[in-house]
């Protein structure tokens, strides 16, 4: 069975451009989470989807970030416009239920220059 898959693995964009990150959760997992690690610091929670609904988006840093999960399958995280401080690794995780183990993807390394 495939694990959590994230695309692309790396992305380098210029400040002011738009980037869209994608996460494909494990099939059948209703819960999907986004985390990010900026500048080698802590990995921080961004948001939590239950199917297509945002259960908790308390970690979203500002309105330049837009997460969607249309149809409750894959999710996208769009950054528009990107700033230098958005550089980091963005992780996605999924779990079957909210209180079962979450499995993480390999992450997308975003570099804004």
């Amino acid at each position: 069975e495939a694990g959590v898959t994230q695309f692309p693995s790396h992305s380098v964009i210029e400040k002011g451009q738009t980037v869209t990150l994608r996460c494909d959760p494990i099939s059948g997992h209703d819960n999907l989470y986004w985390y990010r690690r900026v500048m080698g610091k802590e990995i921080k929670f961004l948001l939590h989807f239950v199917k297509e609904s945002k259960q908790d988006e308390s970690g979203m840093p500002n309105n330049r970030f837009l997460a969607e999960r249309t149809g409750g399958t894959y999710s996208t995280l769009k950054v528009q416009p990107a700033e230098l401080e958005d550089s980091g690794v963005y992780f996605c995780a999924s779990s079957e239920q909210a209180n079962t183990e979450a499995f993480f993807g390999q992450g997308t390394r975003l570099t804004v220059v």
Partner: protein
Amino acid sequence: AQSVTQLDSQVPVFEEAPVELRCNYSSSVSVYLFWYVQYPNQGLQLLLKYLSGSTLVKGINGFEAEFNKSQTSFHLRKPSVHISDTAEYFCAVSPTYNFNKFYFGSGTKLNVKP
């Protein structure tokens, strides 16, 4: 609010030596405790978790951790490390009412030398 402190950003150790990676946390609510590992070019993998019961928790690859409530610590140990244990290790907590909302420490890079 929850926070996690990993005191050592890097730990060099020789192969077959014991290792301890330290983790302390603070929280205003009850939490679960976790250790995750990230091998080079891979995602985060769960090593072990403490939910309740025995304070000594055994995980994969010979790792174990002990929950100490009075010291609010959850140190990770392995009696004999291998080259393949070279990775970054993350301590995390989550509130018991929100299992997968993790608060991570800043990570400890374990470098096992031959």
